[in-house]
């Protein structure tokens, strides 16, 4: 079981460790800086952290000694936008204000994922405003994936919770590193089976309630808040979507909507059991214009049968006047499937050591939490 967990927050990176008396903060890094994401690379133990300085832009840092020391490394950089660049999408309708041109400049690192076990050094990075980057040297350099960036459908992506679209989920198939699935807000789920040389959008089944009726099932209009892949059956994908919970059992070829989940199907994160594709956890909230726990009660929902039924897990979680929202990267499950952790916008972090049956708060006073990641050995 994992005994170390990294928590990225608005004011720095906090590392929790499990000691004989429980979980406590063992180390802080980047105090005062906006740490938006952290990744642990089980292949070599490296840590990558993304910082978003309000004035000075997005930066990446790497530690090769478990977080004791950090070095700034290259941040993904968009190529020069050609002066004569013309967007491939149709012009705005007559009378409609023209859309501002997309800025080809890094706004946010929204996903970092190691490549496969057979490609040491490869790291994928998803960003706002919609570029997917790949490094082959652990983050020392990055290259924009041009086939996806140049796909005409990419021009139709729009922002979800931000002015510009972004890639927040990257799932590398453990059976085949060339098979990579990504989630875009808002642009649906895309996949490549050749390491990024060609891309296709996932199939139908997701539903975008916020679109006109004729557009609601358009794959490129979907807002998957997070895509999670089942490690032992990578054809199974779970999605916490803006409109609910969706599941695919054919590697994004089609999607089924899961309804009737109490207290809500709205939320941001989803975590999948490392060995059981039918078990997944969610942290729901009041949809979508309010975004706090239903009734002020923090709960986790869990399915163990592929979404046919859900349990609402409350033991150890605040059940009155709690307004903790859990962002998409702020829930994680360790490699055993029994330890879980999540952190909230109000700076609380909870850990479960029994697959969610009960929870203990391990901190109540952190800055807003953006990401929670266990250190894993695979």
């Amino acid at each position, binding site marked *: 079981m994992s005994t170390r967990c990294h928590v990225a927050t608005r004011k720095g990176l906090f590392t929790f460790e499990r000691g004989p008396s429980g979980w406590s903060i063992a180390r802080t890094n980047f105090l005062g800086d906006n740490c938006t994401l952290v990744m642990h690379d089980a292949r070599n133990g490296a840590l990558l952290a993304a910082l978003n*300085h*309000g*004035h*000075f*832009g997005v*930066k990446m840092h790497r530690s090769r000694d478990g977080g004791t020391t950090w070095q*700034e490394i290259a*941040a993904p*950089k*968009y*190529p*020069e*936008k050609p002066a004569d660049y013309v967007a491939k999408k149709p012009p705005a309708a007559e009378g409609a204000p023209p859309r501002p041109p997309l*800025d*080809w*400049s*890094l706004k946010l690192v929204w996903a970092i994922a190691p490549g496969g076990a057979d490609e040491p050094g490869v790291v994928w990075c998803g960003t706002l405003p919609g570029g997917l980057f790949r490094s082959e040297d652990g983050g020392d350099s990055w290259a924009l994936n041009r086939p996806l960036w140049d796909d005409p459908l990419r021009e139709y992506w729009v922002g979800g919770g931000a002015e510009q679209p972004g890639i927040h989920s990257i799932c590398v198939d453990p059976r085949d590193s060339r098979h990579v699935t990504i989630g875009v807000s808002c642009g649906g789920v895309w996949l490549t089976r050749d390491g990024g040389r060609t891309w296709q959008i996932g199939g139908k089944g997701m539903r975008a309630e916020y679109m006109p009726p004729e557009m609601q099932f358009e794959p490129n209009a979907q807002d998957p808040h997070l895509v999670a892949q089942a490690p032992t059956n990578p054809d199974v994908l779970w999605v916490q979507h803006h409109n609910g919970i969706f599941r695919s059992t054919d590697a994004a070829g089609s999607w089924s909507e899961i309804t009737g989940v109490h207290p809500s199907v709205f939320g941001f994160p989803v975590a999948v059991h490392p060995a059981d594709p039918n078990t997944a956890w969610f942290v729901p909230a009041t949809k979508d214009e309010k975004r706090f726990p239903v009734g002020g009660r923090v709960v986790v929902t869990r399915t163990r049968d592929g979404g046919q039924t859900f349990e609402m897990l409350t033991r150890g979680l605040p059940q009155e006047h709690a307004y903790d929202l859990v962002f998409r990267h702020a829930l994680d499950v360790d490699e055993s499937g029994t330890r879980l952790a999540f952190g909230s916008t109000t700076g609380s972090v909870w850990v479960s050591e029994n697959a969610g049956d009960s929870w203990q708060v391990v901190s109540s006073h952190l800055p807003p939490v953006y990401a929670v990641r266990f250190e894993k050995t695979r």
Partner: protein
Amino acid sequence: MAIVRFTENIQRHVSCPTRQVPGATLREVMDRYFYENEQARGYVLDDQGCLREHMAVFIDGALVRGRRDLGDAVSADSVVDLIQALSGG
């Protein structure tokens, strides 16, 4: 040569000492400064070489206008100040 000075706030991220730099425009001055200090470039300029949204640059006390082309004129005795804008928080 123009004197180029950076806000103290940037120094904890990347060292940006005050230097004298030749150049007739802000672009020329910036390119010359960052040629010697490549890491600092991305702290001031975005991916397209424009001033970051929340950076303010003054030439002899006047806020620069050419935030995209960095075309404002710089004279041999100018002082260029690079400061974080309060719009960035």
